[in-house]
């Protein structure tokens, strides 16, 4: 099997596993305990926090550890929404149409159950949220703007530095979901100028089950998980010490090896994009070609079922994913496809191929060799399915 789905998740780096191990058996204490066990555990998460903070160029107490990127999104958006409403009465939240469900579902929830008003920012046909779009939409009643740093489905990198500046000058909170971006893009929060940023370890060779949220000092935030007061009273629950250590180590390695990892995957990605568009008829690249994650290739193929292509690919030994993938075989094009104006005939046939540290040129060649045939097979089966009588 050849894994080409790094945007879904990544294997845990063995150095990360090594860093985590002691905290399962030897140094297993509860960081909140007074005794030595607790002190050692607390020291571990403090070091982890400092390490993450130094990479993000912020203060350690601006980092909150969570269970995942989705939880970070929830904490950021709900936490800031309630706090801003309490503080200024502002209750409009702006978010792009192409956000991850952890952002959109949370916003829909806030709209339905809490009376917040959500405005959805359009993206251009390459999935980008431009600062023009944002500036047209903000008003005095806007509490928060949330635009993702890079899109998981189509790889587009948004101009969040500009958007952050725009929000700052209008005194609006700006949150960015950087879960997908963290593996490859710079995370200096002073340079970016953002107020909150979500991270999830399993996208950058850390374990699943741990994330982080950067919250700029002074940002009003009401806690989501209440209880024992951990994480500065903002996120209750005994900290998952080994995983937090894992996240920090994974981020440290990512920061150090960022350039070389990007240089490794970029040419492979470009080869995939070039070859697919050349050899497969009725194919389109989705997302921005230039402002794009270096490991990410995504396409739509007309008149084909994306789910079926994934099945054929898996049976042929290649693990990929799709914007419209659905395990129960009931596919619909994703919101992102709709947002970038892809019609249903194309949108159902999406394919996402994302590369990582273990991807070799031979892997890519083998993939490119079988893909055209499988797309053809999937198209044929699509036609047969329509005329079976």
């Amino acid at each position, binding site marked *: 099997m050849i894994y080409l789905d790094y945007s879904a998740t990544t294997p845990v780096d063995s150095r990360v596993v090594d860093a985590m191990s002691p905290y399962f058996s030897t140094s297993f204490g509860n960081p909140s305990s007074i005794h030595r066990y607790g002190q050692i555990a607390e020291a571990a998460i403090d070091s982890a926090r400092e390490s993450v903070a130094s990479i993000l160029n912020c203060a350690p107490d601006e980092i909150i550890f969570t269970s995942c990127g989705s939880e970070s999104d929830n904490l950021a958006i709900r936490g800031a929404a309630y706090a801003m409403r309490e503080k200024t009465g502002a209750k409009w939240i702006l978010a792009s149409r192409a956000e991850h469900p952890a952002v959109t579902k949370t916003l829909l929830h806030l709209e339905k159950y809490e009376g917040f008003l959500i405005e959805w920012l359009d993206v251009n046909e390459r999935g980008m949220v431009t600062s023009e779009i944002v500036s047209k939409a903000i008003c005095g009643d806007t509490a928060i703007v949330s635009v993702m740093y890079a899109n998981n489905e189509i790889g587009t990198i948004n101009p969040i530095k500009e958007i952050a500046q725009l929000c700052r000058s209008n005194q609006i909170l700006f949150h960015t979901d950087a879960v997908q971006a963290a593996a490859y893009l710079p995370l200096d929060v002073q340079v970016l100028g953002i107020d909150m940023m979500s991270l999830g370890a399993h996208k950058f060779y850390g374990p699943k089950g741990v994330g982080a949220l950067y919250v700029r000092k002074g940002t009003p935030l009401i806690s989501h998980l209440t209880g024992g007061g951990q994480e500065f009273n903002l996120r209750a629950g005994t900290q998952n010490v080994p995983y937090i250590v894992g996240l920090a180590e994974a981020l440290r390695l990512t920061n150090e090896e960022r350039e070389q990892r990007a240089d490794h995957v970029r040419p492979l990605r470009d080869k995939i994009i070039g070859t697919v568009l050349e050899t497969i008829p009725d194919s389109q690249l989705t997302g921005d070609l230039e402002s794009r994650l270096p490991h990410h290739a995504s396409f739509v193929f007309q008149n084909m*079922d994306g*789910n*079926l292509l994934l*099945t*054929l690919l*898996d*049976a*042929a030994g290649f693990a990929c994913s799709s914007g419209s993938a659905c*395990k*129960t*075989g*009931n*596919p619909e094009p994703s919101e992102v496809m709709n947002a970038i104006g892809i019609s249903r005939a194309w949108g159902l046939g999406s394919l996402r191929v994302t590369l990582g540290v273990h991807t070799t040129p031979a892997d890519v060649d083998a993939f490119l060799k079988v893909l055209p045939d499988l797309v053809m*097979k999937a198209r*044929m*089966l699509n036609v*047969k*399915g*329509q005329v*079976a*009588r």
Partner: protein
Amino acid sequence: MNKVVVAMSGGVDSSVAAALLKEQGYDVVGMMLRLWSEPGKEDSNRCCTPDSMAQARRVAAKLDIPFYVIDAKDVFHNTVVQYFLDGYARGETPNPCLICNRQIRWTFLLDHALALGAEFMATGHYVRIKRTEDGKSELLRAVDRSKDQSYVLHVLNQEKLKHALFPVGDYTKPEIRQIAEKYGLPTATRKDSQDLCFLAGEDYRNFLQRNAAEMLQEGEIVTLDGRVLGRHNGLANYTIGQRKGLGVASPVPLYVITKQAVSNTVVVGTLDQLGSRALTAHDVNWVGGEAPRESFRAEVKIRYTAREAEAVVTPVNNGEQVRVRFDAPQRDITAGQAAVFYQGDVMIGGGIIV
């Protein structure tokens, strides 16, 4: 290793089929179809609900085989469900499982299995397949006669049969359940399901009411010589041979003899008028590939649950149709059902009764 796709439903039979084939050394892949269900009733369909899908997925995980779901909603609706509705519109009693087996399982799904690189496709049907010396395939009744499902597979031809495997047919149902328990398959205690899969557990009449109400138009109940005895509430509500529920006053018991779609009448008669010794069937499939030149004796089943009856089968029109003459009169020969002919355990073929 030979690759085989097992059509899984989450039920015990297809689960055990997968287990048996894995035991026999095949490279097994599980596949399930997402079929059509009425909007809003996705969870109540007998087959292929999210629930049974989760079940099938669990079985695949326990057997450590890959598992894929294929979307067949549209093609299922356009062939099977449509066939069902069309049949009732013609005043027949259609058996959509025949179309599902031919078009959905053994064409659509088989195409997908072959596309995946499989040489074979297997189902959990209770039937046996025997390869003969001349490279042909014979379909035999299952060892467990009470569960035999060869009837619905009479539509399969040699081209499809050469890719078919039916591991379950060699066992009795109790043996299959034991095997399921042995493998720790979660389906060991599920009840067997009998009715049409897309009816969501409801009566077929409710389905027709919702999807083709025009077929439930009132009309007359008449005798064979045209005397009007009463009114019926829609042809689809009556089956051939039905005695109860006619709502007609009569000194002797009356039975539904035929349903006339054109005049929208239900024709009733007495018991001796009901029986018939002959039928014609069209759309005949000869499992061996060729129609016999001459008449032959066979045991003929006229519906899935019927007992076989001795008859003489005469191929007509190059075998595209047959005329069947029974030794003894049959009560409920129903247009739209299949007449399937056997000689001993071997299924010779079958067609749709006109």
